[in-house]
């Protein structure tokens, strides 16, 4: 099967001069440009906030020190917040993922940590309902519609208007004629993908590096998948209206219904009662200590920090050391449920990745979020880093609290600085393989159907 280059050029000209291409490509470019603007806006605002954190932290601590002068550290230490940030990766503008719903800055006190991890700003539910029209949305949800618009009538329209009979009787190789028509659409689809992606690289200032290349591979494989799905439907040899309806139904199922059903299934199969349980245990673990003897509380604290046993804690009155030991006990008592909570969140993530093997739309979205570090796993890493930083802060201030040091005598900015997580190159091979496998399966099925419905003699419609 050999496809003549001149035939391809004429096919391209005929296709590109059609109104569908012009309207489809224009709409996609407009959405594309808006998505770049949206990505820059959302992540830009987050980055501005993150950039302001050091000065806010400095000013905040100065106020705390001024307010606490003349008091002991144990009293003053109740008040300060210590800021942490989850900086966006350069690719977050491309795929915002969960960064719009999960907090990207968390300020924590030296009190029990668990309750503080889940504090976040209120989000407008209408904004959440609409979602983000970022570049990943354009590639994941809108590109398939463009591919459908470019391909649904590739052979059926010619059958319907009678050109196909002349093509069939003229062509030396009907397989080559079909391949040529499909190849032209594939070339236009891939070129459009590359153009929009290149525009995204420029507009979103994505670094020319491996993650950007991975993004490109995912969107190209994804475009290939939808092209093969279109080819499969075309190969059924039905009418243009049947093809369009079927392809849009497939899009609705894969892009909307399936993910919704999968989300419900995951939530039901892995319930997370630990989320509430952790907060309750931590609060009860701390509050109950007010009415309990101090010794058991302190013993739990000493088991972890034996170096503070030498400092006296009065049994019959309040002391800062005992107060922070109570807070720590709350975390200790909720530690198991907290661990289970994070474990279950990871289980949900693992299950959703398995489910993605059955749906290239989910696989592609997950891959883009992983590359952009905007997925659930990235957020869990951030929460863990906040926990670690909380421990660093406690351990920095404990000596001053137990020694009963005056507020003005210590360096309040001497605690270990928060170190945001570095970019993590999460593996996306499984997602890519899933998309490729579905693309190959669709292609093979399409080839079989093309042979049966177009290559062999059959009763041709309208013949």
């Amino acid at each position, binding site marked *: 099967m050999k496809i003549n280059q*001149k*035939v391809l050029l*004429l096919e391209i000209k005929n296709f590109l001069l059609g109104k569908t291409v012009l309207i489809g490509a224009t709409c996609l470019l407009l959405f594309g440009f808006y998505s770049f603007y949206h990505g820059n806006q959302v992540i830009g605002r987050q980055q501005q906030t993150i950039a302001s954190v050091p000065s806010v932290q400095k000013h905040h601590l100065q106020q705390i020190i001024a307010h606490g002068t003349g008091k002991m550290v144990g009293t003053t230490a109740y008040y300060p917040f210590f800021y942490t940030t989850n900086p966006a990766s350069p690719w977050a503008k491309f795929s915002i993922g969960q960064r719009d719903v999960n907090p990207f800055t968390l300020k924590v006190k030296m009190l029990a940590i668990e309750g503080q991890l889940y504090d976040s700003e209120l989000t407008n539910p209408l904004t959440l309902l609409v979602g983000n029209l970022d570049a990943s949305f354009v590639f994941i949800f809108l590109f398939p519609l463009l591919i459908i618009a470019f391909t649904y009538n590739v052979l059926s329209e010619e059958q319907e208007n009678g050109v196909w009979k002349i093509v069939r009787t003229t062509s*030396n190789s009907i397989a080559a*004629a079909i391949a040529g028509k499909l190849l032209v659409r594939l070339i236009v689809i891939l070129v459009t993908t590359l153009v929009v992606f290149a525009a995204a690289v420029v507009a979103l200032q994505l670094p020319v590096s491996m993650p950007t290349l991975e993004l490109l591979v995912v969107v190209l494989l994804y475009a290939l998948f939808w092209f093969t799905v279109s080819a499969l439907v075309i190969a059924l040899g039905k009418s243009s209206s049947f093809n369009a309806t079927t392809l849009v139904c497939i899009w609705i199922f894969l892009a909307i219904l399936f993910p919704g059903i999968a989300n419900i299934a995951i939530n039901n199969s892995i319930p997370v009662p630990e989320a509430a349980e952790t907060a309750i245990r931590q609060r009860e673990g701390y509050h109950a200590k007010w009415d309990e003897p101090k010794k058991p509380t302190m013993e739990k604290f000493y088991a972890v920090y034996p170096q503070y046993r030498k400092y006296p804690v009065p049994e019959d009155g309040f002391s800062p050391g005992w107060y922070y030991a109570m807070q720590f006990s709350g975390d200790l008592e909720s530690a198991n449920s907290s661990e289970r909570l994070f474990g279950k969140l990871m289980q949900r993530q693992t299950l959703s990745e398995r489910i993605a093997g059955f749906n290239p739309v989910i696989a592609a979205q997950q891959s883009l979020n992983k590359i952009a570090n905007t997925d659930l796993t990235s957020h869990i890493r951030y929460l863990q880093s906040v926990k670690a930083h909380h421990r660093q802060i406690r351990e920095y201030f404990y000596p001053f609290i137990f020694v009963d040091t005056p507020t003005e005598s210590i360096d309040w900015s001497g605690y270990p600085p928060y170190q945001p997580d570095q970019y993590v190159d999460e593996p996306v091979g499984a997602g890519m393989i899933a998309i490729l496998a579905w693309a190959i399966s669709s292609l093979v099925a399409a080839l079989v159907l093309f042979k049966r419905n177009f290559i062999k003699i059959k*009763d041709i419609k309208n013949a």
Partner: protein
Amino acid sequence: MLEAKNLTKRYGSHTALNKLNLSIQPGEIFALLGQNGAGKTTTINLFLGFTEPTEGVASINGISVAENPQEIKKHLAYIPETVMLYPNLTGLENLEYFSLLAGFNYSKKELGELLATAGLQSQAFNQRLAGYSKGMRQKVGIAIAVAKKAKVLLLDEPTSGLDPKASNEFSRIIQSLAENGTAILMATHDIFRAKEVASRIGIMKEGNLQSVIDAASISANELESLYLKTV
């Protein structure tokens, strides 16, 4: 040569074509007359390989269409009632496209000569087909058939809807193709056009070829009477 032996096509219990026996020699124009549903288009579709015969054989130059659907395409060309080509390409580009599909790589000059042979005005060569009249598209269809150097031409009501001048032009070109040795099978409703261009005329009814007449031996009026009596 174009030949049908006991050629039959049934769709369920309906017999669209019943045991057609027919032979058309090079240089001969055979016109099939008949009402809608008489089996004319089914006959052409069986020769084109658009549908498989239930019984019998359709062959072109001794090659069975059903057994060698790809091979017979080299020998035949087809012009439907309405030639629908690619509206975004010019007449010249359409001819080039279909010539290339058939394996012929003509120069622009040769393509222009083919269109001129088919009677298309030179100023229309580089106009997009979307602006062509039906007659102009039929001429591009003829040019495609000529470009293919096909020895067998199948026409399915090719003058339907053409104005008398365009229809006359079309007939003249068809006759010149036959004079050059092309065997032509033409399905038509137009009794007078059939009488004018065909060497032999077959009248079909309900899938059966009722009679075959030598066109030279009958007047147009006699043919019309016979046709009306038959159908």
